[in-house]
């Protein structure tokens, strides 16, 4: 039975070998992730982080365990430099090295003492403590709000890009079609212009 310190050390080692991926589409599955990352490094484990409390259309996040921390650095820097797509374009994924708090099944830090204490309403510090609680709630609301804003912004960007893409593709389709059905050639003959073939 490994002692607490050893367990924790092993855990920390695992953390240093893990990459945290963000902005994953809900269609990304473990196998997709695996094949994607196996292009660069051997994947030892894949774990998705469930979204229990965030807004419901938050992108997925996952932890990928690689075989060495050097690989982690490489993968993170590569994804930082070149936009990497998974299961769809053009929104890229993001990666950063994992930290201990990202694992919910982490072992305890050895030699840590937690202290707690109840404060009653007639304590001198009670009011301050209550203020602290209120602050926590306020902050949680703020966080929720920023999440919402972020999702709205992302939606806007996506829509804009979608429109742009559609116009481009329509344009190209149009070009393709007039080349294909000979309209271009006919017009060219009319105007005595040369039309390159293909």
């Amino acid at each position, binding site marked *: 039975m490994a002692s607490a310190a050893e367990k924790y050390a092993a855990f920390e080692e695992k953390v240093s070998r893990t990459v945290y991926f963000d902005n994953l*589409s*809900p*269609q990304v599955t473990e196998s*997709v992730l695996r094949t994607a990352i196996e*292009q660069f490094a051997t994947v030892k484990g894949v774990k998705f982080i469930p979204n*229990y*409390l965030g807004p*419901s*259309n938050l*992108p997925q*996040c996952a932890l990928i365990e690689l075989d060495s921390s050097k690989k982690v650095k490489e993968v993170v820097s590569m994804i*930082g*430099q*070149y*936009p*990497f*797509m998974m*299961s769809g374009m*053009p*929104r890229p994924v*993001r990666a950063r090295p994992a*930290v*201990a*708090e*990202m*694992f*919910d*099944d982490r072992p*305890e830090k050895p030699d*840590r*003492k*937690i*202290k*707690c*204490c*109840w*404060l*009653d*309403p007639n304590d001198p*510090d009670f009011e*301050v403590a*209550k203020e*602290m*609680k209120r*602050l*926590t*709630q306020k902050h949680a*609301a*703020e*966080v929720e709000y*920023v*999440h919402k804003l*972020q*999702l709205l912004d*992302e939606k806007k*960007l*996506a829509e804009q890009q979608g429109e*742009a*893409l559609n116009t481009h*593709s329509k344009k190209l389709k149009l070009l393709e079609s007039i080349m294909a059905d000979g309209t271009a050639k006919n017009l060219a003959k009319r105007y005595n212009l040369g039309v390159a073939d293909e």
Partner: protein
Amino acid sequence: MSGPSGAKVGDLLDFKWGIRRGVGLKNKDVRFFESFVYEGVEYFLYDSAYFYHDHLLETSVGKLVKMYERPTHEKVLKVVWFFRPSEVRNFLGDYQPRWNELFLASGAGKGLSNITPLESIMGKCNVVCTSKDKRNPEPSETELKTADFTFNCAFDVGRRAILDTFPDVIDGIEVTRFFNRKGERNLSKPLHAGTDTRPKIRIKTRTSPSTMLCQQVEDNAEVRTSENVVPKISSDSFPYKKRKAEDENPTLNPSSEYLMEKELDEKGAKLRQDKGVNRCKKITELTTGPNANDESSLHSFPFKKRKLGDEKLIINERPDPGKINRSSSTSQPNKSLKDKEFDEEVAKLRQEGRVKTCGKVIEVTERPDAERRKWFKKMHWDQRLQEAQEMGTLVLLSNLDPSYTSNEVEDLIWHALKKKVEARVIELGVKSNDYYGRALVIFKTKDTAQNAMTELNRRCLVLGDGRVVGARRGTLTEPNKQGEFHGHLTIDRIPSKRLRPEMRNAVSTSHCAQCNTIEYEMANEWLLQYKKYDASWEALSKKQMKEIEDVKSKLKMDSIFPVTS
């Protein structure tokens, strides 16, 4: 020959060509030179100099490799660039550059060299090569001391890597020209020491904020204008190419933005590297350096941040009453047996001699039956949480230390509330404030859950580092059923049946976007979006931390947790 505006192009103040070199091979009207005098400074071929770029805070340093005059009397220079370490920091790897070290551009690709109008030159610069290459004469002590910059390595713009060995030819010029000259002339002139501060002085104009900034970044190609470049040169002599750019939408450049840009520099610099090389195409042959271009994309940052900031201020007031209502509603005291038990406990605590404040400090050790945890095979968390929510036994604890583990939370609840529970800490996401840790706790029965919440809301459970645990009924978010994900686009294309299998695979495999695709540009827009929100989250975090500190300082921790052990 005159430019489109009718003025005689090429009349510069303070300018005189020096030694002639010859005429161009293709176009006999192009005349090459070996030196010129501009603004009182004489520049020779293969000198290094500072160049000014629109909207960039720093000048760029480059080596003059060609200087010539076109038939239109435009005077242009061909410059091979030196990169500053900040410009290539993503590609440095382990290399630690010195503070005044530069990297010589080499290889082939964007950012290697530019043809720039002569007016962009700002002043001479003394760059000494410290490389141990055989072809490079070693610089003397004095030369090193008086040098403005040194360079030791090359940076290949095609491969984007630092090279220790210099290639034989850089952009058609022999590399020996870039090394130190034998019998080096003393080039350093004191008056040029301050040249790199000049751009700041030149930014005089202050235009009112245009709505441009609120648009998306893709429009920013037009944003880069030379509106405030070189105001001292009279408009008559403005090279016509620069004026063309002026006609495009004006941009906003309050000088204060430069300060913010410095902060955001970190965030945007990487994008500059990528986007800059693409956006080059849009404005031809303007004074552009390796990464002049998406500087302006940063402009949207501070404004968006400000907008966000204002909205945040508003929400400060709103949710408060709402939240308080919610917590009070959950803390409707259900007078049950358990409640009475609590009351008794409270009374007991009160009687125990309290010198300063509340009852005894509870040290949270492992729960008595902690071993038991390891025996039972646990059900999948998703299922358990879902069930707990339906049964009403799910509670969300907030403001825990984020480094707590699930077991520690369970221990905490055992000691504080004398209840056995199952806990799951919520993992740290990169978005929310790191200070708050949260956990979902499943109680045994609905009543115990209710009472715990009541208790935690009525009294305050204070943790060792000044945190007060908050409790709320836990509600899980609905899973994302529609698979709604913004940002993945599809277009009606050839139906997949007709696609060859390789093509089908190509679309669906994960890949890095190539620079020459629309995909790449769109991806960069998304990256910008991410960076923008990173900045916002950080700002929010900072603000929240400050508020927390303010309240914490009021809480007298020493009186609650007597410093004994």
